[in-house]
Structure formats: structure tokens, C-alpha cells
């Protein structure tokens, strides 16, 4: 299959070369169909959304550390929602809701997977572009529209959606219950519908591209782990996002057409509703059928990126390449049969709870395999601490820390007491939030030269990493204690319960780390834009890497390679491969053998 695809792609090149039509500003930078430009568009949009989401978190951390105190910045940013600078409880809920939505979907799904799937799939498999450049462009622009609608929802009279990022009905269905469930919620649903459409277009494209457009010699077991991760992520997205769409549509019907999918026996704000027979739990099943795979849609690309970066910078093959692929597949499969662990205390049949506990704890096995394989890759390596490598090691650390507490939460008996407390907040921020954002930072530092032809400043990268790593743990580690003290999440203030008064200093501690951590991201933004405009030009293969993207010229061009597409002769992880006599390197003086190099006389053919 790959061979025929190669031939066709080859025909296509010639075709392409003869039709070099002049590109205008609009076709090059705005409605571009080039995967590299689309990747950059995703990245910049994701970063803008990321800054919005992060600023929101700082605002509600202010409220949590200094409850009901006035801050001029709150009044400046929130206006009527913060009279005299004191945050209103409704806007507090709206902030946590939109923070969650933006971070989960807009930053860590579209910003992470959208950026790197687009950038790396064609470059690393040896393709001229995505299978359909047009669909790819459409995918980005629908995502952009979805972002615009989400941001616009912040400005409506009754406030943005405020029912939590999981938007459980009836709270999300009834404007009488919370003002954010008015127009704000409608816009949320519209935005998510667009988002899902965009995600599907993107994912289908990624799948088709990986399966059909691999260059000659690029068998599935020679794919870099990044590509495996993106492929499986895309499959997860295709299978689960439509279910979220159905959940959202039914909610839309309940909200505006008087149906009762999720509503029954409701008396709200003195008004008895006519709805009867619906079940709010149905929504949760539908939501989490996407929601749990979504966690891995976020995480797998980060793990793929990390595999690549750790191997490159340890100057060693990734340990257990096939086991890594197996664990990606295992995690992906299991992710579809664990959604009920979000619902242990919904009144769901306890027997179902047992089944979900069983399947959930099984996920720890492939996850453990991954963690140990990363650590073994470092063992006896020759580690080069680029900022990308630091973030990758950080990811392994947070993946372990956060994964371990998952064993507590996945256990239905233990979940009873920590469900919806800060223990959960700690767990998912560390395992999913931090790991994924570290993966994203790692990816940006590592592939910035590929994206922009420039190098990012190393020293600023170091400072950014250490500040981020320390403050991130400083924010989320103490939350385990809050959770075990019985503190529920999504509380506007904890002052209503005297039993939580001794938690004030922990909350203060967290908020200070959060503020410092947020400021530290300024260093990254500065480094990014400074390097973008004034950074040093990069050489073609700055990290001495094996994968195909580093065989393309620094200056971007349509079709990626000026001549024929390179042929692949080996897997991507031949770092520090010894010569035949076991001494030195297979290529004397060079500790890496790019994928394009045929089997050398001075090396053993290795089965990996």
C-alpha cells in the first residue's frame, strides 16, 4: 500500500511543480492549505486561548486565597461581575467552567494535537502534505470560529456558561438555576458543536494520511512514536466526539424545544416544569463516553512527543518500541470502557461500578509500562538537557505522580469520599493538565526550529522550565491535602464552613505558586515571539535527529522536499548505534543514523 501511495505521490509532485501559482498573503497566511502553516495557526490560536484560560485561573485563585476581598484587577477585568473588585459567586463558577473548557478542548486538544499532528504527520511519514489540504484548512477555520464563539460567550449580558466544564443538566439546561445557563450556555453548545466538526475533519485527515501517504519503506513499525500517538488519538477522536455531539444536541433540544431527555420532576425558582421521564444521568453517560477518551486524546500526543524527545536527547533508542506502541493501543482501547468511574456516586447500579473499577485500574498497567520504558531510556544515556528534554522529564514525573493517585480515584470504594473534592482537582491537573502542557512545551521547544527556522533562546527556556516545574507542583501537590480534608471543589469560598478554616494557609500557598507560575509563562511568551522575529537562524538538523522532518530544508516550501520524497530504510531510533565490532558508532564520529540511511556495512541489522 505504501509503495503505491509513493508512486502516486510522485506523480503528484511533478504536477505540483509545474503549477507553481503565485501565492498571495491570503492563501499563504490565512486560508492556507499547507499543513505547516495550519500547524502554526493552531499553535498561535491555542496559545491565545491558553493565556485566557491561565488568566482565568489566576483570577479565581485570587478569590480562593483572599475570599471576598476586593482587587482592582478583578474589577478591571470582570466589570459588573466584580463590584468593588469583589468577585460574584456566579462569575466564579463561570470562570472555573470556561477555564476547564478552554484548557481541555481549545488548548490541550486543538492546540496540542492540532499543532503537532499537522506539523509532524506529513513531515515524519514523508508526505508532501495532508491527504486533503482543503479539509485541513476547513478544520482549522471551524476551530477558529469555535474559539471566537467561546470567547464571545464571555461578554454576554447573563454571563458565560457556569455549570462546570462537564455542563451537567439540569443545571446547564435551566437558566432559572444559574444565569450562565442562558445565552452563555447556548453559545457554549454552539462553540462545542463547531469544535467537534473541526476535530472530526482534522482527525479523519490524520488517519487517512498516516495510513495512505507513508513514503517508501516507512512501514507501520518504522513510524516514530509521535505518529503512532497522533494516529491513535485521531481514531479515539473520531469514535468519541460524535457521542459528545449527540449529548450536546439533546441538551440543546431540552433547552429550547421542550423535550425531556435529561429532565424530570423539576421545580426550580418556584416554577414547576412539565418535563417528565428524562434522566440527567443519561447525559453523564454520553458526556463521559467522550470525556474519558478525551483525557487520552489530550495525553497520548504529549506522550508521543515525549518519546521522541527523550530518545533523541538521551542519544539512545526509545526502550521497548513495540511495547510503547502496544501500551498506546492498550490505553486507547481501555479508555472506551472506563467512563463510568466518573459516575460511581451518581446512583448508578453498584455492579456497574464494580466493572468500571476493574477496567479503570487495568489502565495502570500500560501506563506503568510507559513510565518504566521512559526511565530505562534515560538509563546509560548521554543526556543532552535541551529545554524540550527538561519538559519531557518533567512530563514523566507528573505522569507518574498523577497516575498514582488515579489508583485511588479509580477505586469505587475510595472514590466515595474523595469524589469531587480537591483530591480530584489535584489528580487530573497533574496527570493530564501538567503532563499534557509539558508535552506541548517540549514539542514547541523541540520543533520551533522546524516551524520557524529559528532557535529559541536556551537560557530563557531553562528558566521557564524550572519556574514552571516548581510552581506547578507547588500548586497541585497541596491540593491532595485539601481533598483529604474533605474540601469540595467549585466552592466560591470555604468560609461558610468553620471546619475548613485551617485550610486557609494551604490555599494561600497554592495561590502564590499559581501567580508566580503564571508570571513565569511570560518568559515563555517572550522567548517565543522574540525568537520568532529575532532569533538565531537554525541549521537543518539542530538536534541531530533521525526522523524525516529534519531532512527538509529550513525554509518552508510547498511539498516539503525540493526533490523526490526520501526513502526510509530503518526505524527512527538508531541513536548511538555501535559499529560491527561493538566499538564506536556505526557511522564513525556521528552518534545517529537517520532513517534515510540504508543498512551500513559497519552495523548489525537489528530487530527492534
Amino acid at each position, binding site marked *: 500500500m505504501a509503495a503505491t501511495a509513493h508512486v502516486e505521490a510522485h506523480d503528484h509532485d511533478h504536477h505540483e511543480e509545474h503549477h507553481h501559482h503565485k501565492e498571495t498573503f491570503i492563501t499563504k497566511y490565512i486560508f492556507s492549505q499547507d499543513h505547516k502553516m495550519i500547524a502554526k495557526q493552531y499553535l498561535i490560536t491555542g496559545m491565545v486561548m491558553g493565556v485566557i484560560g491561565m488568566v482565568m485561573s489566576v483570577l479565581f485563585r485570587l478569590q480562593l486565597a483572599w475570599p471576598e476581598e476586593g482587587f482592582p484587577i478583578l474589577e478591571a477585568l470582570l466589570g459588573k461581575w466584580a463590584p468593588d473588585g469583589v468577585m460574584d459567586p456566579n462569575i466564579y463558577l463561570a470562570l472555573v467552567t470556561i477555564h476547564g473548557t478552554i484548557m481541555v478542548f481549545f488548548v490541550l486538544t486543538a492546540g496540542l494535537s492540532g499543532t503537532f499532528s499537522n506539523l509532524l504527520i506529513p513531515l515524519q511519514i514523508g508526505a508532501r502534505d495532508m491527504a486533503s489540504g482543503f479539509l485541513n484548512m476547513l478544520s482549522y477555520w471551524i476551530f477558529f470560529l469555535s474559539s471566537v464563539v467561546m470567547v464571545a460567550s464571555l461578554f454576554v449580558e447573563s454571563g458565560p456558561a457556569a455549570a462546570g466544564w462537564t455542563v451537567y443538566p439540569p443545571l446547564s439546561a435551566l437558566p432559572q438555576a444559574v444565569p450562565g445557563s442562558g445565552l452563555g450556555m447556548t453559545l457554549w453548545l454552539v462553540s462545542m458543536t463547531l469544535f467537534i466538526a473541526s476535530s472530526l475533519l482534522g482527525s479523519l485527515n490524520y488517519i487517512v494520511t498516516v495510513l495512505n501517504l507513508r513514503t517508501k519503506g516507512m512501514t507501520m513499525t518504522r513510524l516514530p512514536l509521535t505518529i503512532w500517538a497522533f494516529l491513535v488519538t485521531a481514531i479515539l477522536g473520531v469514535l468519541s466526539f460524535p457521542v459528545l455531539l449527540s449529548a450536546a444536541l439533546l441538551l440543546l433540544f431540552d433547552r429550547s424545544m421542550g423535550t425531556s431527555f435529561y429532565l424530570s420532576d423539576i421545580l*426550580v425558582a418556584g416554577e414547576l416544569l412539565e418535563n417528565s421521564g428524562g434522566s440527567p444521568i443519561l447525559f453523564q453517560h454520553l458526556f463521559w463516553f467522550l470525556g474519558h477518551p478525551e483525557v487520552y486524546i489530550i495525553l497520548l500526543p504529549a506522550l508521543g512527543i515525549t518519546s521522541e524527545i527523550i530518545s533523541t536527547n538521551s542519544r539512545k533508542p526509545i526502550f521497548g518500541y513495540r511495547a510503547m506502541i502496544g501500551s498506546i493501543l492498550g490505553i486507547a482501547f481501555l479508555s472506551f470502557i472506563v467512563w463510568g468511574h466518573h459516575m460511581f456516586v451518581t446512583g448508578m447500579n453498584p455492579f456497574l461500578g464494580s466493572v468500571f473499577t476493574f477496567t479503570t485500574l487495568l489502565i495502570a498497567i500500560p501506563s506503568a509500562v510507559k513510565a518504566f520504558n521512559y526511565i530505562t531510556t534515560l538509563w546509560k544515556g548521554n543526556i543532552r538537557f535541551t529545554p524540550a528534554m527538561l519538559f519531557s522529564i518533567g512530563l514523566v514525573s507528573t505522569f507518574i505522580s498523577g497516575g498514582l493517585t488515579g489508583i*485511588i480515584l479509580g477505586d469505587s470504594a475510595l472514590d466515595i469520599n474523595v469524589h469531587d473534592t480537591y483530591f480530584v482537582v489535584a489528580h487530573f491537573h497533574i496527570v493530564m493538565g501538567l503532563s499534557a502542557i509539558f508535552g506541548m512545551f517540549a514539542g514547541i521547544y523541540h520543533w520551533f526550529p522546524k516551524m520557524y527556522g529559528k532557535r529559541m533562546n536556551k537560557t530563557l527556556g531553562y528558566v521557564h522550565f524550572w519556574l514552571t516545574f516548581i510552581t506547578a507542583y507547588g500548586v497541585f501537590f497541596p491540593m491532595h491535602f485539601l481533598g483529604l480534608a474533605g474540601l469540595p471543589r467549585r466552592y466560591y469560598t470555604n468560609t461558610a464552613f468553620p471546619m475548613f478554616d*485551617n485550610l486557609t494557609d494551604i490555599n494561600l500557598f497554592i495561590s502564590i505558586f499559581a501567580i508566580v507560575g503564571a508570571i513565569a509563562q511570560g518568559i515563555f511568551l517572550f522567548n517565543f515571539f522574540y525568537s520568532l522575529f*529575532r532569533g538565531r537562524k537554525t541549521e537543518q538538523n539542530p538536534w541531530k535527529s533521525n526522523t524525516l522532518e529534519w531532512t527538509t530544508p529550513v525554509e518552508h516550501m510547498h511539498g516539503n522536499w525540493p526533490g523526490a520524497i526520501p526513502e526510509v530504510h530503518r526505524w527512527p531510533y538508531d541513536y548511538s548505534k555501535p559499529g560491527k565490532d561493538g566499538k564506536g558508532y556505526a557511522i564513525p564520529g556521528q552518534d545517529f543514523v537517520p532513517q534515510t540511511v540504508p543498512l551500513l556495512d559497519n552495523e548489525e541489522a537489528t530487530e527492534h
Partner: protein
Amino acid sequence: MSIAIIALVAFLGIVALVQVVKVFEVSSDINKGKENDVTDKDNRTQGALMLAFMVLFLGGFIWMMLEWGDVLLPKAASIEGEKTDTLMWISMGLIGFVFFVTQPILFYFSWKYRGSKNRQATYYAHNNRLEALWTIVPALALATLIIYGLTTWIDIMNPEHDEEPLVVELYARQFDWHARVAGADNKLGYANVRFVEGANVLGVDPSDEKGKDDIVVRELYLPVNRPVLFKFRAQDVIHSAYMPHFRAQMNCVPGAITQFSFTPTITTEEMRQRPEVMETVSEIDGIRKGMGEEGYEFDYVLLCNKICGAAHYNMQMRIVVVTEEEYQQWLKEQKTFAESM
């Protein structure tokens, strides 16, 4: 105005930073534009920082445990809660062990194998034995946890009580709780939001005989050592009845009745006498006095633990666990549903 000043300061700050970085890069021109390549010196520094971080991280964790260990919930006040607590500490012990083994290895390896021009990494692509090892060992550990966890879960969710449990309904609405004790017949009368009217806030069917002796209260008394079967209802949105001291939680779902059962084992009075509780209470008391708030006395509480709207953070009910005699006394003082209508 102040915003304009902040914006100006931020702008000037960025301009200054640009200049600093530029000077830095120009001054290192002797490196021929390679100042962003990682040197052996960088590897040494970053490797050392990895090790330093490991100390800070693990030390910080231990510091938190010592410093904040006392904020954790006191001893579980129910039979079921004791079971989950045991399971909790066993699981915590296990994950704590794995944490304290894997994290140091990660940071130690990062430091130990920091790069240098003179070293050659070991080409080591896979080892089936090792991989089998770290598939099978976690699988065995998890199998144990799963079996233990599920036994506990089934025990709690399908209780078999020797004596008939006391039936109590918890009713949630924005933003308060009501409890309905099943009364002399220990059976709750049928209820639905469609019957809510005037003083009948829980919507108890006035024509249902079983409901006439029900007792609706805003503060719940429970007898110690007697199993209680809670039935949960909600009127408007999903709430969650969370009773942390009993390690009990169940969502309250509009249109459905959910249930959860536990047996309280420690009266409120006994709990107040426990040394660790007294210590926490006096600490909280001190904090509150400093803020000019009234003093704190330990009480069991029911809180809402599912986002339910603006006052979600303040939806509470006091629960008082008393001796059987005190409970009977309290019951006598309450009006039945029929009496209060």
C-alpha cells in the same frame, strides 16, 4: 488610567528584555551563533538541578505531610468509613512506595547520565524480560487492590443489616437541605415535586398513609450504632450529599431516588472529646478568634458536593449523632408531617 500605566510598564519591560537578550546573543557571537546549543557545562548544571529538585520535591512532600497532616479528616465515624479508610491507607502506602522509588530513579538517572562529549550512550533497545517484569508486577499489585477494593465496595453498596435500618430521606434543593425521618412505621410516604405546596416543601403525598408519621427536619439527629438507609432526592438540579466524617457520598438526582447506607459509630459528643479533634478545633478556634468570628465547635455536617449554582458553597445541614435514648427524646419533640400540615 492605572491600566494604561500597567500597559506602559509592561511594554517598556518587554522592550528592555528584548535588548538584554540581544546584547547577550551579540556578545556571544564568538560562539558563531551556537549559543543555543547545549554544552557539557549546561548538562552539568541542569543535571545538578535535577538532583536538587529531587531533594526539594521529596523533602517538600515530607514537609507537607508533617505540616499539613493534621488537616486531614479525623477518624471515620461509621463502620463503612472505617473500611474505606483502611483500604485508603493501604492504597496510599502502596502508591507512596512506588512514588518514592520511581521519582528518585527518574531524577537520579537524569543527573547520572548527563551528557558529555566523551561519553557514548548504550544502544539498548529492548529487553523482553524487563518488560514482562513491569507488566506483571503492576498487574499483580493491581489485582490485589482490585479484589480488596471491590470487596469493600460491594460490602458498602449492598449492605446486609441484622436489624432493620432507620430510613431517612435527604432532600436537596437550591440551596438547602431537608431531612425526612420515616417515623413510627419506618416507611417514607410517596413524594413528588408536583405535591410541593406551602408548608409541604418536600412534596409528600398528603393522601399516603405511610407519610403521615414522617418527620421533616432541618437538622438531623441520628442514633449511634444503628444502620441508617438514606434515600436521596433533588428538586431542581443535581446535588451531592457529602458527609465527609462518615466517608459517605451520593448524588441527589432530580427525577430519581438514590440511596446509600452507613452505621454511625461515634456520637458527636464522643467525637468532640477525641484528642485529635480537640486539637484541630482549638487551632480553628484560634484562627477564627483572630478574624473576629465566633468560636468553633465540632459538628458533623452534610455539604453539597456537586456544582449546583451560586450558593453551592454554602449548602449545609448539621448532623448530630446521639445515644439511642437521646434520639428517642429528640423524636418526641418533633412534629409529624400530619401534625404540621
